[in-house]
Structure formats: C-alpha cells, structure tokens
C-alpha cells in the first residue's frame, strides 16, 4: 500500500522530518474560522439536542421529587433536599463513591501500562500480527453477560478453575466474588481483562502515527532501544495517552454493565454485592431511579458525579498538558 499523502500532495520524507516538534501552536486568529465553525456545527447541534438540553432537564429534575409517573409539570419542588439526602444520609452512596474511585484508579492505571506493553509487543516485528491483535480484541466484542458468567464460574470458590490452579501450588481456595473483601478486586481484574484490548488498539493506532524518521534520527544520535522509547515513543504518544486517560476515567467512573453482569445472578437481583462491596455510583443511581422511583434523587447523584468527573478531567488535562 502506498502512502496516501503521496497521491495528494508531494511531500518528501525530509519535509516530514523537518516538522519535528509535533505541534506548533499558532497564536494569530485564523481567518478561516468560519470553516471551523461549519466543521463543528453537526456535532454541536446534535449534542445540544441530545445531551446538553437533556442534562439541563436532569438538573432541573434533581431539584424536584419526581417518581417518573407523575406528569412533569406537577412534580413537587424540593430545593436541595435530594442533595442533602444523598450527601448526608445515604451510606450506600458514600460507599459507592469510594468503590467507584478505587475501581477507576486501578482499572485505568493497570490498563494503561498493560495496554502500552501489548501495543509495543504487537507493533514489534512478529508473524501473524492480525491474528494476535484479533485475539487481544476478542473480549471487547464479547457480551458482558458471557464474560460475567464465565468469570463467576472460573472464580467460584468451591469448584472454580482458578482455585484449582491455586490449589495445585498450595494456596488455599479463595472466596473471590462471594467475599466482601475480594469482590471489588475481582471486578477490577475483569475490567482490565475486558478493556485492555481498547488500550492496545488505540496505542497501536498512535504508534502508527509516529514517523519512522524520528527513530532513524534517534538511532543516528546513538540512542539505544530504551532511550528511543523514553525520548521518542512516549513523548509522541502523549496525545494518545491523554485521550485514553481522560476518556477511560470518565467511562470508569460511570461503570455499570460490568458490575451488573458480574454481581447480579438474574434480572431480579440488585447487584453491587456482597454487602455493597461492589456497589458503584451508577448502579446505585439506576436502582434509585428505576427500582425506587426516585428520579429526583438519582438526578442529584448524576449531578454530583458529573461535578466530580468534571473536576478530575480538568485536573488530568492540566497535568498532562503541563508536563509538555
């Protein structure tokens, strides 16, 4: 396959290399800003209609007591009652917040490291590359239901394969998902398992974007493999890493499906067990809205979570930008 840009504009590799410094910020106002507005308008219009307006509605609901059934104009206004209720008198919500943080922190950290390692491995000179990357990707396409079922069976205290393996090296059987102490760890492990493929694929795409010339230049300067990793690969992957950290933290703080699949035996169970040890914010929110008919309180939780995620995202953007 020929490089696509050669067909459109003739650019020599030398020119490419000379553009070192991956980004050059221009400070003057671009005269073509109208193009930019036109380019972003589809996204803005759709998000306005299908996200921003509904989010404002949700905020409005959070100041009311709404059971989802009462006609919207008739729902009683309760001020900040929903907020005081969840922040002061809801043990489960507090527990869920802590669990969610623990889950997001460890899940994202491990996945970042393992995902990069996987991508580097797949990007090195190996045979049957498409085959390996397909395997890495399989857990992503697998239904959470199948994964939840598989792991509950594998991690079963009495007859699970994992305990059989542990037993063979002399470790006593562990209760795993049925223990309040170990369940959250198991969920984090499952998250790593299911999502590491995403990181690998995104890192791979990022690695493809690093021109070989940079490595050549580093080699000419006498850099060894480790040095070119630290001084070429990592810095140039920063935009990709920023993207992965930010979006996955946002996603992990809203984890729902995975916990639901792993901790509910069927449609009737509420999940988050044993004894709330795997209860996460969005699961508690879901139960509050669609089991307890308390949409106002669930919306208040959503707003609190929103603020938390927003602040964390800003900090991440700032941290990762600051280091450049």
């Amino acid at each position, binding site marked *: *396959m020929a*490089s*696509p*840009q050669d067909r*459109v*504009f003739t*650019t020599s590799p030398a020119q*490419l290399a000379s553009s070192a410094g991956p*980004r050059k910020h*221009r400070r*003057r*106002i*671009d005269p*073509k*800003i109208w193009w930019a*507005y036109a*380019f*972003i308008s*589809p*996204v*803005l219009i*759709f998000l306005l209609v*299908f*996200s*921003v307006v*509904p*989010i404002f509605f*949700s905020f409005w609901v959070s100041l009311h007591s709404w059971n989802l059934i009462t006609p919207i104009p008739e729902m009683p206004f309760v001020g900040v009652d929903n907020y005081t209720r969840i922040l002061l008198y809801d043990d489960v919500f507090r527990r869920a917040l802590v669990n969610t943080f623990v889950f997001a922190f460890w899940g994202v950290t491990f996945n970042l490291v393992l995902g990069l390692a*996987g991508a580097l*491995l797949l990007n090195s000179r*190996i045979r049957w*590359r498409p085959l*390996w990357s397909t*395997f*890495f*990707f*399989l857990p992503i396409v*697998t239904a959470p239901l*199948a994964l939840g*079922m*598989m792991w509950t*069976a594998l991690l079963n205290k009495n*007859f699970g394969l994992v305990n059989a393996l542990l037993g063979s090296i002399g470790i006593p059987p562990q209760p795993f998902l049925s223990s309040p102490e170990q369940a959250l760890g198991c969920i984090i492990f499952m998250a790593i398992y299911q999502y590491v*493929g995403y990181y690998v694929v*995104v890192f791979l*795409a990022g690695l*493809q*974007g690093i021109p*070989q010339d940079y490595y050549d230049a580093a080699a000419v300067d006498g850099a060894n493999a480790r040095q070119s990793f630290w001084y070429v690969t990592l810095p140039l992957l920063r*935009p*990709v890493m920023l*993207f992965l950290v930010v*979006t996955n933290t*946002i*996603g992990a703080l*809203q984890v729902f499906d995975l916990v639901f699949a792993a901790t509910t035996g*069927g449609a009737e169970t509420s999940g988050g067990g044993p004894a709330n040890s795997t209860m996460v914010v969005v699961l508690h929110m879901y139960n509050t*809205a669609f089991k307890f008919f308390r949409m106002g309180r669930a*919306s208040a939780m959503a707003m609190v*979570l929103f603020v938390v995620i927003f602040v964390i995202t800003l900090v991440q953007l700032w941290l990762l930008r600051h280091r450049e």
Partner: protein
Amino acid sequence: MKGLTGMAMRRSRLTQPFISILKYVALVSVSCVMLLPFYWMIAASLMTTAEIIRTPPPLLPAEPQWRNYLDVVYAVNIGRAYLNSIIVSALTVLGILFTSSLSGFAFAKYHFPLKNVLFTIILASMMIPFFVILIPVFYIVKQLGWLNNYAGLILPGVVSAYGVFMLRQFIQGIPDELLDAARIDGASEFRIYWQLIVPLSGPALATLGVFSLVGVWNSFLWPLLVVQDSALHTVPLALNNLRTYGAEERSLNLRMAGTVLSVIPSVVVFVWLQRFFRRGIALTGLKG
C-alpha cells in the same frame, strides 16, 4: 513487501533469538487467556439446559447440541434482525466517523473564539450516564417523529463526543506544514479535510469505527424503547426474546448461541479493518 518484512524478521531472529522467543511466549499466553470467553461462549452455546445450569458448568458439552443454533434461528426472525442491525450500524458508524473527523480536525488545527469552551462542553456531555437523560431524549425523539423508524435508531447516535476527542488527539499529530502546503496549492479547507486529513487519519478512523460498531451493534436499551414494531428489531432485541421468564439461566445455552451469532460481524469487521492499522507498518517496512 512480504519479502521485506520476512527478511527483517529472519534478521531479528538471528540477532535476538531469546527476545523473539519471549515475545511469542507472551503472545501465545495472552492470546489463550483472551480466547477464554470466546471459547466459553461457544462451549456454552452447545450445551443442554441441564449442563448449563450445573454449577460449575462443565468445560465441554458431553455432546455438542448444534440444534441450539437452529432453535435460535427458528425462535427469532434473525435474518430480518441482521438486516436491521447492519443498516443501523453502518449508517451510525459512518455518521460518527464523518462528524467526529470533521470536528476533530477543526479542534486540532484551527483557532477560533470559544474553542476551549465548546470543546469542554463536548467532553462534559460524556459525563452523564445515559439512563439519567433517557426520558428527555426519548421525549425529543418522539417530538421529532422518529419513534418506531430507522431515524430514531440511527440519528441520535451519529455524533460521538468520544470520537471527536479521539480524532482531535490524532489529527494534532499531523504536521501543520502539510496543511500549509496544501493551502499554497490552492486547496479549499474542505478539500484539505477530505483529501489530506481523512486519509492520514486511517488508523484512528479504523479504531473509532470498530469501537463505535461494537457499541452500536450491541446497543440494547435505546432500540428497545424506540422500536415498537418487531419488523424493526435489531439483533440484541431479537435475541432478548430467548430469555425465559423467572428462570433466566435455563435459556442461557440458546442465548449464548445467539450471542455467538451476534458477535461474528464485529469480529469480521475488526479483521477486515486491520489493514488500516497496518498502514504505518507497511511504510516502515518500505523505508527500512
């Protein structure tokens, strides 16, 4: 090209045989673990009801129950569901790729007033769980007359904040000099987008394409609410009819058979899109 990479491989094998072996050991062991759920789905899809509700279920069915697959095909109108899912997923993913690359490009390469504010709003839209805004979104879609037709299934999903962010990050890495060169050649801004940015974003677009496909293909709650007519059922909705009331676990074998049938397209698309992931590697091979 194959010859070249092949030669490169032989060379590396001669110089670093140990590292090479280590690599394959890592690849094989990770792949085995990653294949587990897939193996599990297939095994479970071939079990009898008695086998699947055993705790723990056996690792292999005593005798593969191929008729489970026939049962699925008979029980639900899977052909129609596939057609609907293909139409909905293809159009949604195309929409996401188009809108995301367009605005990702704008956010990466232009400076305009309110840029950071607008970008923050886009990011912020990802921070609310969907079911919290489900009711207003449903109301809006109903007002637009999109209930119970393809429009309601497709249009609310053609924009992805995640996609905008992803492509912004990748397009930032494309050197500005390329754009300037194109402008000197007299290209319009849209032409730059279409003939320069899109081809150069190949790996990112392929990645986003696969991710969005997996999401749209498996999406369940939204189609369930939007669709009343079973002729519009997508694959997850059709498969949902396989559940047995009050005893979910009893139909798991059939549901797993359905799941196997439903993940095949995602895997195929992933394998097919891999040629885009390899683009950079091909270039490397030529230059090296």
